């Protein structure tokens, strides 16, 4: 299926009207990025509303329901409140770092919107290194957190900034490795091509269900878990642990600067869900996207349904999981996720070199995924059992070790 990019179609139409080539391309991209950025900013209103409603339902509350229909305009009211707040700069703060940090954190997230394929032919830019671009831009968010932590001239903010760097850098590695499995299978880092390869043609009709997540569930789960950590969501939200770090690296920020950090965080969660959908859940693929006129619209619909579905799943986890400790977080990244992903990649690289048809390779990759996950689950279960025994023993007085079972039966005295 040959898909025409929206930018090409629109700029050639403008050139047909008599505009010079560079002006047409400039105009098309200016309008496109204006729409994309404003969509990103405004969708955060909806995202925050979804989060509030979902978590309220989980906690047996109703949630916002006063401003607007179903409380939809509550976030607008909150934004207006934040706008009217006093803008505070702490004493002896590093002004450049302090003021630049909120801008950078939003910038790093908004730039990611450029490569997301929303529908057939509807991508900001179909970059040939899109998968790597997503990873590279994550480093801007890390830099912004570090600048906020340092610039605020507050030791709690600085500590939280260090935590952010440790967490985001650690979870970037399993994230990259999970993306690598997809790149290895599809042979492309172009998001448009990755999505197109996930079609499933039966009798000339595009069923659109050849999702890579079905072939490699292990990589999908690792990607999802590390994207939770990258988006600073529960159970990895110890960056804003109220009881330990007061609020996190943005403790000294007020008003709209504070709101910008939150905007970046919510949008980052949504975009990571969009990347997960693009890589593993078929992007805009779905039954009937190959149809001539209605296809692109259906594609956009499928994409949005999938992404908001993943977003709601993230909020569900946020409402049900407890927060983990920092040592557990680092342990999980380096000793569980990274070895798991390396095992998966080695297995997949060997399987893809086998002289078998592609369908057999897919089945083998699926088996390898399930096998590696089963091994990891077995090792983890064994470790946790031993850990439980150890902690139980450390609470017992040393003179009573081994005698507790006896005392439970009541035969000790």
């Amino acid at each position, binding site marked *: 299926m040959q898909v025409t990019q929206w930018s090409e179609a629109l700029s050639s139409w403008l050139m047909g009207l008599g505009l010079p080539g*560079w002006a047409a391309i*400039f105009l098309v991209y200016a309008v496109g990025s204006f729409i994309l950025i404003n969509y990103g900013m405004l969708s955060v209103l909806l995202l925050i509303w979804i989060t509030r409603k979902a978590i309220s339902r989980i906690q047996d509350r109703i949630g916002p329901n006063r401003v607007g229909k179903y409380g939809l305009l509550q976030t607008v009211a909150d934004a207006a409140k934040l706008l009217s707040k006093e803008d505070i700069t702490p004493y002896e703060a*590093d002004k450049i770092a302090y003021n630049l940090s909120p801008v950078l954190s939003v910038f790093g997230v908004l730039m990611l919107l450029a490569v997301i394929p929303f529908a057939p032919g509807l991508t900001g830019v179909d970059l040939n290194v899109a998968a*790597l671009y997503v990873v*590279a831009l994550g480093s801007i968010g890390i*830099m912004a957190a570090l600048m906020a932590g*340092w610039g605020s001239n507050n030791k709690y903010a600085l500590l939280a900034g260090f935590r952010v760097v440790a967490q985001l850098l650690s979870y970037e590695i399993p994230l990259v490795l999970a993306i690598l499995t997809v790149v290895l299978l599809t042979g*492309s*880092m*172009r998001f448009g091509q990755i999505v197109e390869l996930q079609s499933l043609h039966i009798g000339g009709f595009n069923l659109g269900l050849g999702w890579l997540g079905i072939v490699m569930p292990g990589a999908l789960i690792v990607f999802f878990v590390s994207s939770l950590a990258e988006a600073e969501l529960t159970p990895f939200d110890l960056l804003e642990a109220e009881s330990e770090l007061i609020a996190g690296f943005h403790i000294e920020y007020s008003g709209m600067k504070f709101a910008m950090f939150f905007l970046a965080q919510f949008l980052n969660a949504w975009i990571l869900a969009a990347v997960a959908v693009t890589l593993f859940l078929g992007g805009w693929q779905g039954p009937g996207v190959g149809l001539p006129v209605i296809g692109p619209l259906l594609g956009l619909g499928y994409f949005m349904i999938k992404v908001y579905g993943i977003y709601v799943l993230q909020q569900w986890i946020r409402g049900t999981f407890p927060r983990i400790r920092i040592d557990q977080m680092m342990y999980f990244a380096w000793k569980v996720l990274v070895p798991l992903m390396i095992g998966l990649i080695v297995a997949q690289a060997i399987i893809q070199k086998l002289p078998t048809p592609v369908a057999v390779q897919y089945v083998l990759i699926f088996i390898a995924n399930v096998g590696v996950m089963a091994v990891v689950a077995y090792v983890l279960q064994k470790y946790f059992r031993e850990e439980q025994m150890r902690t139980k023993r450390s609470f017992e007085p040393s003179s009573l070790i081994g005698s507790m079972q006896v005392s439970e039966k009541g035969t000790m005295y």
Partner: protein
Amino acid sequence: MQLPLGIEVPIPTFEQFVFIQVALLTAVAGLAVVMSRNLFHSALALTLTFFGVAGVYVFLEAEFLAVSQVLVYVGAIAMLIAFAIMLTRSMMYGRTSPLNNQWGKSSLFAFLFFIGLLAFARATPWPAPGEEVIADEALIGALGREFVTTYVIAFEVLGLLLLLALVGAVMLARDR
């Protein structure tokens, strides 16, 4: 475009106009690295320079290199430098002077280095405009193939070096 004194100035094309902005940003940020009185600001300016260089790579149609530049230099090296500066607190708070008694010698060597680079750039046979260059996916594929064929020893040695650094870091950080 004709200037009053009869000097002919070519009107920059759109690409050249954007390139001038990116190049100016890179150069000004590079100057800020050495001129800044605050070491942390120098590190931030260095990050901006890395971004500018990535922008120049985009103009050379080497998107892969540009993205790798951001990933490695901004994501890892700038972070490392920022951490190193933060851990030397006394340098952070005192306003350090960008000059010491060796500025004369170092500026001389910087100038000589620039001359050398210029000579190198003039001697390199650049592809002429309109000439066919490898681009897009073919470039990334060719790069990967070079790594595991022509440069396999260098690639493996680099991997070993990184592994050693990792083991060394774990050795330094472990509980005794």
